[in-house]
């Protein structure tokens, strides 16, 4: 027999979650709740030729252009020293690396890589994600995007850095302080 009604007073047992101020539950949370949302964008402010393993300088947080609605998001953000990025608190993070390369006289260059590298002991780094790019014999640019999700449980030991590898010493990665050509974005997805 199909039920068309449920007798709440007599058929339910246990405790149902209670609204807290009408906006959040006081119990019954699920994993992934994001207590501190964050989107933090950094840019490489100068071009360079050849490799950077890792990128260690000319990094700046992307400035807001409030009139156009361009903004960072959240009350927490990443910090970096010599290209090594530290997460502001534990959580799941999406880390993205955008790289734009330019043939500048070095000729065809078929295996340039944008790499995201991570450490779990604040010492030894492993390559986590790669994006391959290539340029032709002359006057060609190419762009790559590498991304990875990290479960950061220890902000002291778990860090990330970024590298440009395999590029001919005469070709270059493009950077400017005006907008993102090469850069990184960190998005906090939720609590760990």
């Amino acid at each position, binding site marked *: 027999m199909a039920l068309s009604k449920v007798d709440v007073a007599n058929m339910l047992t246990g405790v149902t979650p209670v609204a807290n101020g009408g906006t959040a539950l006081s119990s019954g949370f699920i994993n992934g709740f994001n207590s501190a949302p964050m989107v933090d964008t950094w840019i490489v402010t*100068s071009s*360079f*030729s050849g490799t*950077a393993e890792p990128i260690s300088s000319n990094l700046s947080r992307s400035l807001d252009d409030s009139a156009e609605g361009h903004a960072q998001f959240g009350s927490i953000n990443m910090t970096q020293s010599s290209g090594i990025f530290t997460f502001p608190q534990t959580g799941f993070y999406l880390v993205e690396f955008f790289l734009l390369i330019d043939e500048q006289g070095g000729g065809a260059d078929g295996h340039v890589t944008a790499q995201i590298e991570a450490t779990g002991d604040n010492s030894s780094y492993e390559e986590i994600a790669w994006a391959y790019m290539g340029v032709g014999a002359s006057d060609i640019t190419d762009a790559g995007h590498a991304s990875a999700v990290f479960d950061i449980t220890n902000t002291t030991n778990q860090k990330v850095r970024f590298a440009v590898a395999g590029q001919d010493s005469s070709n270059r990665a493009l950077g400017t302080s005006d907008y993102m050509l090469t850069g990184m974005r960190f998005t906090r997805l939720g609590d760990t």
Partner: protein
Amino acid sequence: MARPRPNHIEDALTILHSKQWFTWTDSSNKIYANLRLSEKIGVNGNIVDNTVTELPTESAVNAKLKEMQDAWDAANG
């Protein structure tokens, strides 16, 4: 699409040496007076002392930029 004509000293700097050997005291005002050597560069997974130890002179930078512009003009009519 052809590369734009080199028009900034940073174009010349990236030709003079490879890697992240230079930096700026003000990256929104990239003039020679604000040019500095990076203390460290990333090489093969390590952050090491910059192998470039002396800034090129302003005249050398400008000469390299003019050389690049002349080559671009010759190639693009």
